[in-house]
């Protein structure tokens, strides 16, 4: 839908051995945490290990495991979430390539007796990093 908008330009932030970037929903409507099935984050081609990834939404930080059953917190289309993980970036004034993959479940498009559509979207952008 709107995958070119996933990564917010100019939001790459260094937190010691971790990095974070702000992300927008590539879909037209809000989705609950339970429909945010997973993400990947790479900086300059180096991926953050999956178990180190965290998702901050509506002021609270979650693991993807914690999002699995969460139908109380929603990702609103105008809000940025923050994706972070264990991968360093230097706020050295140089350009860095950020890659984000997102897997979302679309809860109203039922494709079989027990399954709904999921979409996988990818965005890549180049930007400078700042320190937290």
């Amino acid at each position, binding site marked *: 839908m*709107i995958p070119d908008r996933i990564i917010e330009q100019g939001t790459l932030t260094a937190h010691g051995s971790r990095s974070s970037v702000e992300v927008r929903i590539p879909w*037209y409507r809000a989705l609950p945490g339970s429909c945010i099935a997973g993400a990947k984050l790479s900086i300059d081609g180096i991926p953050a290990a999956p178990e180190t990834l965290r998702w901050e939404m509506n002021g609270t930080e979650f693991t993807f495991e914690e999002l699995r059953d969460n139908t109380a917190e929603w990702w*609103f289309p105008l809000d940025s979430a923050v994706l972070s993980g264990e991968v360093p970036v230097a706020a050295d004034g140089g350009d860095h390539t950020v890659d984000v993959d997102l897997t979302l479940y679309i*809860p*109203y498009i039922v494709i079989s007796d027990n399954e*709904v559509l999921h979409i996988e979207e990818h965005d890549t952008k180049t930007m400078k990093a700042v320190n937290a």
Partner: protein
Amino acid sequence: MTEPLGTPIQGVTLYSFTRASHQREYDLEALIRKVAAEGYGPGLEIIGFSSFRGFPEIDDSFAGWFKDLVAETGLVQTSLAVNADIGIHRDRLLNQDELIEYMRRQIKAAATLGFPIARVQISLTPDSMEQLVPIAEEYDVTLALEVHADQYASHPRILALRDRYEQVGSRHLAFTMDWGATVTGFAPSLLEAYRRRGASEDLLAAVVELWNGYYAEGPPANQQVHGQRFGSFIGLAARNGRPELGIDFAINGTGLFGPARVEDWLEILPWVRHVHGKFFGIDENHEEPSVPVRELVALLVENGYNGAISSEYEGWHWNHWQSPFDIIRDEQAVQRSAAANAGSRMITDRAEAARVLAAHLAAPVPHLT
């Protein structure tokens, strides 16, 4: 007896402006004011989960602010698009009680916000629709189930719903007609988007030829045929060395551009209480090149339809180079011209729209013959 000609109400869904709203160019208030100022109303349709933070929980002070804004800008609320999120839990589908409760909260939100119609979706079965009738009556909200490609009016699932509506006889059970079910060509603006992504003219010609073949055959008779068509677009892209375009061809070729004929709508027209004037673009002659807007408006007028047509521009997914506002303006001009050619007109006056819509929704079933 000759049916009196219908006077459809002009309107728009804010979904048409998703790209502008998503990029924070217009917030909800600014977008509503823009729609009113540009004369895209009076009908106003909104998707609950797109535009209302915290939906479906709506507090009274917000609802008051919203209704005051709509009144001040001279618009008329038509449909609140709600979602049957049956798969909201990742590991299982909602059970029937949960689904009814999930829908009840959204129907209540429609009433709180002042929308007389809730657009619902195909994942609701005839049993679910019947079960929702007391809730729809309690809140006096018409449930208009959207008939959207790859469904179409004479699809067995839609006919099963229609037959149940007939049995139940509630004026709160209805359909939303989505013009995407009756498209006549693969949208040229989408072909242009593929061209800009480097697709060759040969590949684009092959996509058009494949779709035209399905148009000649008519809509898929069942899910198996639908699946075969979906797969054929993927295969075509792969054979032409552009496998990454395959899913996109398939989703759009089968899910956006439905190949049913305009007359197919006659199967359910008496139960159509809302319309999505789905379209994909406007060409250099200021016409919609792949949706038969003129025929669809004529069909509605000739059959006495007095509900709203929400212009629903879907080309924003791929068209980055044209303003959705200009495109809506031009498509609505086509609708007005078509209504005039059919011997009638589109309603653009607020007071008349409010009066005609209320009467349209209050009419018993079937309200057309």
